[in-house]
């Protein structure tokens, strides 16, 4: 069942006198107990989309739905909403107040929401986040913790409100390789034990492979490919997904995309990926007779679907069901 949904979402910013279309038409769902990974290179709009789903940005158009109902933006409604849908921020060190103990950090949410049994709540959240025995961590300050433990404190802070969805922005990017697996296992365990759903924002495809059910690949404000992780990551259809996978360290034939990083104030016409597309540049699109379309015919916004989808003329010429 769909819990959280983005419907035809557009988010824009003013940037040096121009309009940055940071999220430029996105349909996306996160089902109950489902882990969805949102991947894409830096600046493609992942964080903006995540913040909009959390009600932290107002969409220019389109709707965020939770439990089938459109998000209301009154202070009160948002406060209630944030108990259900919790953010796990990008950098645990930056998001913890160095002068607050672990107890104070985790108790902050329950206090804002005026929840009772604060001590039990904090203890239970810490132990669910793998900090046991929780009492031992109550008086500890962030600088006395390792990076992995800090990330667990941040996750405990989210869990203290008994949310149903976690939105985690690069939950392991600032952590060491050795603790990465531990934090990812924790997310899987929370899903198994509490039925938590999660939207995990990352540029790390290995993370998606490790924990996600579905993956959505974002490029310049749009989702260009989405579907079950096994399908998208084992046999990518969209040239952009292919390029992302090809630059993983072990890959035999890297397709390193050159050029300037994509700029949301200047989204190219036709297929938005066409200036950097290797399928078009290599002439394969021309062989398939779609090169004209690539340059002039924009692709429609992908519908939210749990099936494999790709917004690419070339891929569709070969697999029309995409």
């Amino acid at each position, binding site marked *: 069942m769909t819990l959280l949904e983005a419907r035809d979402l557009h988010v824009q910013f003013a940037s040096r006198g121009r309009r940055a279309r940071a999220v430029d038409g996105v349909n996306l769902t996160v089902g109950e107990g489902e882990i969805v990974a949102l991947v894409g*290179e830096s600046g493609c709009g992942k964080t903006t989309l995540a913040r909009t789903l959390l009600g932290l940005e107002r969409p220019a158009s389109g709707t965020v739905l939770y439990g089938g109902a459109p998000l209301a933006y009154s202070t009160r409604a948002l406060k209630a909403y944030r108990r259900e849908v919790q953010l796990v921020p990008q950098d645990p060190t930056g998001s913890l107040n160095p002068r607050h103990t672990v107890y104070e950090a985790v108790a902050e949410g329950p206090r804002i929401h005026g929840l009772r049994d604060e001590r039990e709540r904090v203890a239970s959240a810490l132990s669910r986040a793998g900090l046991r025995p929780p009492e031992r961590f109550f008086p500890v300050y962030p600088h006395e913790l390792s990076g992995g433990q800090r990330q667990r404190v941040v996750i405990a802070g989210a869990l203290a409100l008994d949310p149903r969805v976690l939105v985690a922005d690069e939950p392991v990017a600032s952590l060491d390789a*050795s603790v*990465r*697996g*531990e934090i990812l296992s924790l997310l899987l365990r929370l899903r198994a034990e509490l039925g938590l759903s999660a939207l995990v924002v990352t540029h790390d*495809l290995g993370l998606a492979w490790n924990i996600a059910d579905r993956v959505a690949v974002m490029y310049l404000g749009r989702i260009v490919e989405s579907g079950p992780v096994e399908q998208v990551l084992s046999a990518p259809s969209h040239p952009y997904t292919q390029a*992302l996978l090809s*630059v993983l*360290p072990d890959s035999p034939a890297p397709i*390193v995309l050159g050029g300037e990083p994509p700029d949301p104030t200047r989204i190219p016409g036709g297929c938005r990926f066409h200036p950097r597309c290797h399928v078009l540049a290599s002439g394969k699109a021309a062989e398939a007779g779609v090169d004209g379309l690539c340059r002039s015919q924009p692709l429609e916004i992908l519908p939210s679907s749990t099936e494999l989808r790709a917004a690419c003329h070339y891929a569709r010429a070969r697999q029309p069901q995409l």
Partner: protein
Amino acid sequence: MAVTYRSAAGDVPAVRGVSLEVAEGEALGLAGESGSGKSTLAMALLRLLPKSARVTGEILLDGEDVLRMNWGRLRAVRWASASVVFQGAQHALNPVRRVGEQIAEPLLVHGMATQAEARTRVAGLLEQVGLPAWRARSYPHELSGGQRQRVMIAMALACSPRLIIADEPTTALDVMIQAQVLTLVRSLIADRGIGLIMISHDLSVLAATCDRLAVMYAGRVVEAGPAREVFTGARHPYGRALAEAFPTVGDPSSRMAPRGLGGDPPDPMRLPGGCSFHPRCPAALPSCAWRQVELWPADGVAGDPAGHAAGSTQARHTAACVHVLPEPERSEPERTGPGTPEPGMPEAGMPEAGMPEAEEAGPEAAGGQEVPNAPSAANASGAPDAADIPDDPGAPDARPAKESA
């Protein structure tokens, strides 16, 4: 080489006896988790550590000991022979100066070029790192993270160094930009015969870029050898944990099964006795709690360990774990006390494990106070020249370009 920081709380042995070498045109990868001593080691190579750091051992650059250089010589070496791309260096660019001026600065400061020559050289350097020459006029905020990192590499290349030390050059970057920077770095080593020491906690990145790898844990090298061999066939349990941390996308065994290492990194002021990895080690034997093994050949090739020790330190795959020892050594740990030849490589200035103290005042006996750390043993045993770093006005500043004239 060993580095100890003196702090109010006590000595912090950050690097505890490490021997490494890099040849021309060769890339050495240095892996290990946060706090394992990688950056300390990198900074020590050019004496860029704060005054509170005490460095012992030898650091030979083309045969000349960096620790004995006078200040003038050191400054010359810092640009002409070796340069560093620092961790988080993209943020180290001066925000109010054009990147071209910043790249040209060392050339002008060292009188290696006139204004006009410097301009031409900057254009060439930018081109080498894949940026158009007009980018010289950009300010740092106008560049993306990857572009700023390229500018840092251009700065490091400005005086044509023979060695580049790159500390986490791609860690904060996304995969595509990381790929751009790594491709660049690889081609520079190949085309210009530069030696590279690259530091990262991501073994897969190092394996794809470097010829050889060394894995550090708690200030020591616990595994070293040819990059592919260490990455795909790690023999030290910590090396293995690092190698498995990033899954191969498409590999069914890692699907929905992230692998990690439990426990927390050790506090360098309270290192566990014996093998410092033992509290987290899935393969620990009871003897690991008090017995520390030196690096030992782990490539399965029979050979004379003494001969190995005398030769190159990393030509072969080695690991510091009881499980790579030949059977008799593994099962009879009592024989490894002083007086008996210690297996592995007796590195210069490298302490033995300090076994007797470990046995007498083991973790239990000492009650919280852990076994004495290796570097103190090193100094006691007369590690050559425990010379403190001389005052060094430019040193603690992590910005190569800020060196005052």
